[in-house]
């Protein structure tokens, strides 16, 4: 066992963890933040995407002990005071959630994408979410939601928000 410290969505957590446990499992099972999902467990599907020290990565391929001292952002940090983030609201408007399993990872990938490219083109959104599988194949709605959240649908007159 090793004692680790994680700052998750601004809150500090200290835990004694087994050295072979992944960050994903510690987030879900030791800390109780079950928003982050386990899909393939092998870095293919992106359901476990979190942002660690500013970089999105697959938390199934990070040992919890490797993350000692890191700042982690997970989907639980997206809504503030009961209000969904702008991207979450756009997901809602565009029905970009069907089963919802890919959504937490998708949202973290998109959060990072928008930090790097505040107004991504459609092609950049498609490329940006290449590491996140949606097996309901709701990609079109997800892409529309990102374009809407960044004001690009309204600009084109394709949509009007009250």
């Amino acid at each position: 066992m090793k004692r680790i410290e994680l700052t998750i969505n601004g809150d500090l957590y200290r835990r004694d963890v087994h050295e072979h446990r992944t960050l994903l499992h510690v987030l879900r099972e030791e800390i109780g933040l079950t928003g982050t999902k386990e899909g393939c467990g092998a870095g293919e599907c992106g359901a476990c995407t979190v942002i660690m020290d500013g970089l999105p990565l697959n938390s199934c391929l990070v040992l919890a002990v490797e993350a000692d001292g890191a700042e982690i952002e997970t989907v639980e940090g997206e809504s503030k005071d009961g209000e969904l983030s702008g991207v979450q609201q756009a997901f809602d408007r565009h029905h970009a959630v069907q089963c919802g399993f890919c959504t937490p990872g998708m949202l973290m990938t998109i959060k990072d994408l928008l930090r790097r490219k505040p107004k991504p083109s459609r092609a950049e959104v498609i490329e940006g979410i290449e590491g996140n599988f949606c097996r309901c194949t709701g990609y079109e709605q997800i892409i529309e939601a990102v374009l809407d959240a960044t004001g690009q649908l309204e600009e084109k007159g394709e949509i009007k928000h009250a």
Partner: protein
Amino acid sequence: MTHEFRYHAPGSLAEALELLERHAGDAVVLSGGTDLLVNIRSGLSKPSHVIDIKQIPELKTLNYDGKNGLTIGACVTVNEILSYEPVAESYAVLQAAGAELATYQLRNRATAVGNIVTASPCGDMSSPLLCLDAEVVIVSRNNTRRVSLREFITGVKTTVLAPNELVREILVPPTYAGAEAGYKKLKRIKGHDLGVIAVALVKHGGLFRVGISSAAPTPLLLPEFAVGTPPEEVQDAAAAAISPIDDVRCTKEYRAFMVGVYIERLMSEVGA
């Protein structure tokens, strides 16, 4: 992860090599973990000791100068390589191939050194680095040696690395800096996927070289050709060099055919 192990995070290379010497054969080196942790999870790898080398400052070296070329330390991630200006300016083939390696999330962890140490026939960094005459610096507690990448990878997922050794860095000589180049990877889908086959081409000083992945037990480098060589000649040389297999991704015939197609397309695009 069900297999249990001891985790070490040494702060110096000397300490890491000491640990590796002490536990040789029962220890693995961890950097990005994008292959290793998958292998531990699936039971393919059952080390008692995992030595994380990311706390070792010198392994994060990423440097270019006109005299020595490009140095890529063991812990440099693929995304760090892609955002390093000298690579974008001078090593177009690494830029093109790096962007094809897995996904953005994976590239934030995966390293170029890890990619060649894994020595998969389809490793995206291998055939471009072969075209660039890359060398590998290998260290152990008592020794440092330099091996050409061509000799480093010996078979499917095998290398010349001894159990007490690790790769400190990849050296890319300045010879091909600024060379026009291209990398084409055939995949089953438009998104990220392991390559069905991939071809790298680097043109330099009236000559060009071709690297091929996923068409033999190891990535291959063909002998040099003069610019203007008919594509058929290059395709024939490739056909003689490769030994593709049938697998879940496609048949060996399709692999062989597409190696020829990609050679011709790259020659035309790069102007070889």
